[in-house]
C-alpha cells in the first residue's frame, strides 16, 4: 500500500474540503502532482475505487497524487441546491469546481512547493480539469478519462443527445428487432423508446435521400447541446502548447460526441495543433472502465505518456 494521508484545506468560500494525498518516495519524487478530480457523486475514490488504482500505479513512479471532495460532495463542507443528478453534473460541466481545483493547487504549492499539475479525472473530473486549465496555467497537461463534450441530458433525454454515429450503429440492432415478436410486443405496448426509434428512422431516410453519397458531413441539429465552455477551454490548452491525452470508452457516446460536436466543428483551428493531443479508445470499455483489463490498458498508456512528459530523475 502506498503512503497516503488525510488532508483538508479551505476553498475561497471558507468551506473545508477533505481529501487524500499520496506521496512518493522523496528519492524518486518528480515535483509534479496529479490531481484526480472528482467525477461527481462518486467523490474522491471514483467508481469502483478507480482513483485508488490510478494512485497506486502512478505514485511509485514519483508523482504526488491528490484526490479530494468538492464542496457539497463526499466528505466536504457545503450544500448543493440541485434536485436532479443531471443538473448537478451540468453544473460541474459549467465550471462549478474551478475555484475548488485552484484551492487544491494553492494548498499543494503552499504546503509542498509543487507548482506543476496534471489535471485528471473521469468524466466530470476531466471537464473540471480542462475548465480550470483555461484560467490557471499551473495545470501543465491533461489526462482525461471520458471527457464530456455535451451537457448531461439524463437517461430520459438520451435520444436528444444521440450522435450520428451512435444512430448508425444502433440502426442494425433496431431493424433486427422488427423480426422479434417480443420486441414488437414491447413496441405496441408503449414500452419502446420511440424518440430513439424516430431518430434512427429519420437518419435512415436522410441517408437514403443523400445519394449520390458525398464525403460532406451532415451536421446534426443537436450541436447546441455542446457544453458552451468546452471549445474555448480545449483551444486554450492547445494554443498554450499544453498536451493532452484523452481516454474514451468504446461502449459509450463520449468519443463520438467529442469528434462530432467538437473536432468536426473546429477542424480548421485544430489542424496545426493536432499533435498536441492523443485520443485513445479502449475497445468495448464502459463509461467507468469497470473491467480490470480496461484499467490496465488505460494505466499502461497513461504511464508511458507521463514518462515522456516528465522524465524521472
Amino acid at each position, binding site marked *: 500500500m502506498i503512503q497516503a494521508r488525510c488532508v483538508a484545506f479551505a476553498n475561497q468560500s471558507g468551506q473545508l474540503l477533505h481529501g487524500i494525498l499520496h506521496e512518493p518516495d522523496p528519492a524518486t519524487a518528480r515535483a509534479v502532482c496529479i490531481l484526480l478530480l472528482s467525477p461527481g*457523486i462518486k*467523490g474522491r475514490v471514483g467508481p469502483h475505487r478507480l482513483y485508488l488504482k490510478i494512485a497506486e500505479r502512478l505514485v511509485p513512479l514519483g508523482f504526488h497524487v491528490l484526490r479530494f471532495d468538492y464542496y457539497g460532495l463526499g466528505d466536504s463542507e457545503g450544500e448543493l441546491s440541485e434536485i436532479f443528478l443531471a443538473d448537478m453534473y451540468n453544473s460541474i460541466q459549467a465550471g462549478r469546481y474551478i475555484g475548488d481545483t485552484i484551492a487544491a493547487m494553492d494548498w499543494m504549492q503552499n504546503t509542498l512547493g509543487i507548482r506543476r499539475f496534471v489535471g485528471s479525472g473521469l468524466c466530470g473530473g476531466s471537464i473540471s480539469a480542462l475548465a480550470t486549465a483555461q484560467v490557471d496555467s499551473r495545470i501543465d497537461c491533461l489526462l482525461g478519462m471520458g471527457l464530456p463534450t455535451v451537457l448531461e441530458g439524463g437517461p430520459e433525454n438520451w435520444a436528444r443527445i444521440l450522435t450520428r454515429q451512435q444512430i448508425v450503429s444502433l440502426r442494425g440492432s433496431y431493424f433486427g428487432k422488427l423480426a422479434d415478436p417480443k420486441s414488437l410486443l414491447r413496441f405496441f405496448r408503449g414500452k419502446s423508446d420511440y424518440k430513439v426509434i424516430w431518430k434512427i428512422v429519420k437518419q435512415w431516410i436522410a441517408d437514403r435521400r443523400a445519394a449520390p453519397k458525398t464525403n460532406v458531413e451532415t451536421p446534426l441539429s443537436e450541436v447546441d447541446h455542446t457544453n458552451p465552455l468546452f471549445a474555448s477551454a480545449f483551444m486554450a490548452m492547445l494554443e498554450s502548447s499544453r498536451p493532452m491525452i484523452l481516454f474514451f470508452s468504446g461502449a459509450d457516446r463520449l468519443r463520438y460526441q467529442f469528434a462530432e460536436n467538437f473536432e468536426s466543428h473546429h477542424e480548421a483551428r485544430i489542424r496545426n495543433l493536432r499533435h498536441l493531443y492523443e485520443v485513445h479508445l479502449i475497445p468495448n470499455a464502459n463509461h467507468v472502465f469497470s473491467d480490470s483489463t480496461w484499467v490496465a490498458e488505460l494505466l499502461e498508456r497513461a504511464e508511458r505518456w507521463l514518462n515522456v512528459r516528465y522524465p524521472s530523475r
Partner: protein
Amino acid sequence: MCHPLAEEKLWAHRVFVSFARDLSTAGFDVLRFDFRGEGDSDRDFEQTDFETRIEDAARAIDAVHEMNPSISEVTLLGLRLGASVAAATAARRSDVARLVLWDPVADGSAYMQSVLRLNLMFQMAQHRKVLENRDALVARLAEGETVNIEGYELAQPLFQQVSKFRLADLLPEFSADTLIVQINQGQAPMKPEFAALAETLTRCHVEMVREEPFWKEINAFYQRAPELTRISLRTLGAMP
C-alpha cells in the same frame, strides 16, 4: 455507522455524511469509517469478506472508546449490508446499546443473487446476451476465481458468508433496542421477515419510511433522506 457494499456505499455516501452531521449537531459523537477494501481504506475488495467487515466494525467501536473514554453508550447504525454487519457485530459484543438498521439485508442469499445479477446485466450490455449464467458464476467463485461486480472483484468468502446470513437468526441474540427501518418508494406492506421479527422480539420495532433508493443511481440528487433522518433521530432521543 456501517456503510453498504461497493457502489451502494458511494451512492449513499452523502446521506451518511448529512445524517452524521445532524447527529453531531444533536450532541452525539459519530464515527464513519470505510471497511477495508472499500473507500479510502487499505486492501483490495477481493481480500475482504463479511467477517472482515464485522472485525472492522468491532475495531471501530474500540476506537471510539479509545478516542473518547467518557462515551458510555454505543449505537451501531448501518444501511443495507452495512446494517447486517452492524447486527452481526452487535450479536457478538455486550457493549452495543442500540441498533438502527436502515433497510437491512435480511436474507443474505437473495441479496447475493441480486449482486450476481449486476454481472449478468454487465454481460448483457457488453455482449447483448448472457454468456455465463448465475450457476456458472457461482461455480467460478467456488473454483477460487473472482466475479466482477461493477468493477469490484467479488470472491468466494464474501459471497459464501453473506449467502449464509439471516437477520432473523441473529437478532434474538441481541437484547438491546433495535429499530429496523423499511425504506419504500411508495405504499408497500411491511416485509414479512421484518414483521416476524417485530412480533417475536419485544425490543425490536419496525418503522416504514418513504424515501428514494438512494444507494443506487436514481434521477434525484439525494443529499439527505429527510424521513429516514427524522425517524432515526427520534429513536436516538435526539428529537421529540
